[in-house]
Structures are given as structure tokens and as C-alpha cells.
């Protein structure tokens, strides 16, 4: 009993070595003789193992989670820089082109009022001629393509009338 009370147990540094590895020779020697420290070490290692397991398990995520995270991280890092630069370049190009076209473009010449009136009149005449032609075509008894045949028939009828009424 007195031996147990007076026993010098492991130091904090020795516990640290033992928790993650085999420990030094002195620690191992102590463990070979001290059941209390063996029990405590088993409890400590078990607790740490459970903690590690829980930490790793809780960080387990579906592949979609990692993909989303990766896409977002990459977009935030690279996307935000690339897009504005491109946008600025495009905007600058558009503004430059617009300015150049404004400088080079001459003011548009308005057509003279008389010229406009003449154009309108010519258009009206052309329309009237077209309508008249259509009217003639409609009123014609025989289509234009059969006009020679119509003349022949007319002549034959004329001859027949002359024979009947000499």
C-alpha cells in the first residue's frame, strides 16, 4: 500500500509520448509495474481514438458537397477577377468604338422637300399605270396568249357570214 502511494507516476511529457506513440523505455518500465497507469492510459487512448473517429466521421460529406465547395472556392478566387477584367475591356472597347464612329460620322443629309415630292409623284404615276394595265387585262375577252387564235376565229366567222349573205 505504501509502495503504491509513494510511487512516482508518469510525467506530463511521458503521457504525451505514450498517448500518440510507444513512449520511452522509462515509461514502458513504469507501465510494466503500475496497473493504475496502464488503466489510465487505456482510457486515455480510447477517448482520443473515439474523438478522432468522431471528428473524421463528422467531416464525411457526399461528393456533391465537395464539388459545390470546390466550384465555389475556385469561382471566388479566379472567377471574380477574370469577369470584371473582361467586362471592363469589353466596355472600354465599346465606348472607344462608339466615340470613333461619332467622330467620323458626318451629319446625315435630309432629302430636299422638292425631291421627296417628285419621288412621291413618280410612285403614284407608276401605281396608276399598273392599275390601268391590270384593268385592261381583266376586261380583255381573250387572254393575251390566245389572241392569234381569236383573230383566226373572227376571220372564219366573217367569211361564213359573207357566204351566207353575199
Amino acid at each position, binding site marked *: 500500500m505504501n509502495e503504491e502511494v509513494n510511487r512516482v507516476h508518469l510525467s*506530463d*511529457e511521458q*503521457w*504525451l509520448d505514450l*498517448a*500518440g506513440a510507444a513512449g520511452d523505455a522509462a515509461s514502458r518500465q513504469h507501465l510494466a509495474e503500475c496497473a493504475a497507469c496502464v488503466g*489510465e492510459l487505456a*482510457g*486515455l487512448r*480510447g*477517448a*482520443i481514438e*473515439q*474523438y*478522432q473517429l*468522431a*471528428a*473524421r*466521421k*463528422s*467531416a464525411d*460529406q457526399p461528393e456533391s458537397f*465537395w464539388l459545390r*465547395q*470546390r466550384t*465555389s*472556392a*475556385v469561382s*471566388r*478566387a*479566379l472567377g471574380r477577377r477574370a469577369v470584371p477584367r473582361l467586362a471592363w475591356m469589353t466596355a472600354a472597347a465599346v465606348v472607344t468604338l462608339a466615340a470613333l464612329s461619332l467622330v467620323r460620322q458626318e451629319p446625315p443629309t435630309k432629302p430636299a422637300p422638292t425631291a421627296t415630292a417628285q419621288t412621291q409623284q413618280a410612285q403614284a404615276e407608276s401605281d396608276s399605270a399598273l392599275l390601268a394595265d391590270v384593268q385592261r387585262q381583266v376586261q380583255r375577252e381573250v387572254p393575251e396568249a390566245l389572241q392569234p387564235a381569236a383573230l383566226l376565229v373572227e376571220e372564219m366567222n366573217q367569211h361564213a357570214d359573207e357566204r351566207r349573205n353575199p
Partner: protein
Amino acid sequence: MESTLAQRQTLRFRADAATGIAREEFEEIVRHHQRRVFRILLSLVWNTDTAETLTQECFLRAYRGRADFRGEASVGTWLVRIAINLAADHGRNRRSAFWRRLFARPRDGEDAVAQADRIPDPGVSPLRQLMAREKLEAVWAAAKGLSVNQRTAFVLRFVEEMSLEEISQTMEVKTGTVKSHLARALAAVRRQVKEKGRHE
């Protein structure tokens, strides 16, 4: 294989500071490190949404600050460094928000305690839900009482299984300081495990 990929990414990232980086290359870096960064952040902030937001922020900061990356550490170490700084900032912001709310004039008869209650409880995270068992409760209870540096060192050592040197490089502190943080964290966990053991 792993180290070759890390070296390639390190070289590419360094070169990129001057020449720019292709979308595919940056995406490959994100793909390679996103799970680890997210896991570390989740272990530090205990909230899935916050961890996701901070993970994205981590990659954004890495990209924007790639000119500062000198290649002394790997891209992975550098990203984890950014992540733990983000988690620390987040913790500070939460604490300052707590005090602001606590001392703000109560609105519509609402008392300060009710306002403080609105601070998100990390206990509702999936990690917390998994900690139903006694041993997990012990580590959880201990982790709650740790300082940011102690908790960070603990997560990097016992969740990520990083060596003391890697942790030292990531946290930008001496190996002795890492040992000190870890020893204190582990002592707290041991106390909690013992306590739980007594109640069983």
C-alpha cells in the same frame, strides 16, 4: 507519390505568384486539400456551416496571398496555417460578439442572459451529436476548456496525426511550445476521463 504531388503543387504555386495560375491547376490544389482543411476547421469551430464558409475563405486567402508563399513549407502546411488562423479569428469574433451583446442595452425588455443565449451553441453540430458516448464526452468537456492554441495543437496531433515538427511549422511556434500546449491539453483530457470513470 504524395510528396511528389506536394512538391509539384509547391513549385507551381510559387511560380504562379508571378505568372498566374490556370483554373484547372488551382482546382486540383483545392481538390487535394479541401477535405483536410474542412476537417480541421470543423474540429476547431464545431459547426458545419461555419467550417464550410471558413474552408472557402481559406482557399480564397491562399490564392490572394500566394505572393507571400515562399515554399518553405508545403502548400498543405500553408493552407492549414491559414485555416487555423481563420478559426482563431472566428473564435475572437464570437467572443467579442458575446461581450457586445452582453453589454448592449436590452431591447424590448429582453435581458442580457436571453441575448447571450442566442449565441450559436456548438453542441448542435454533427460532431457534438456523435459524442454521445462517455469517452467522447470527456474529451469534449476537456476541449471546451482549452485555449485556442492548446485545442489547435491537440486537433493537429490527435485528429490529423501530425508530428510535433509539422505542428510547430504549421503553428509557427517552437517545438517546445507545441509540447507545452499538448501536455496541458492532454492533462485536461486525462482529468475528464478519470472523472467520467469515477461516475461510471
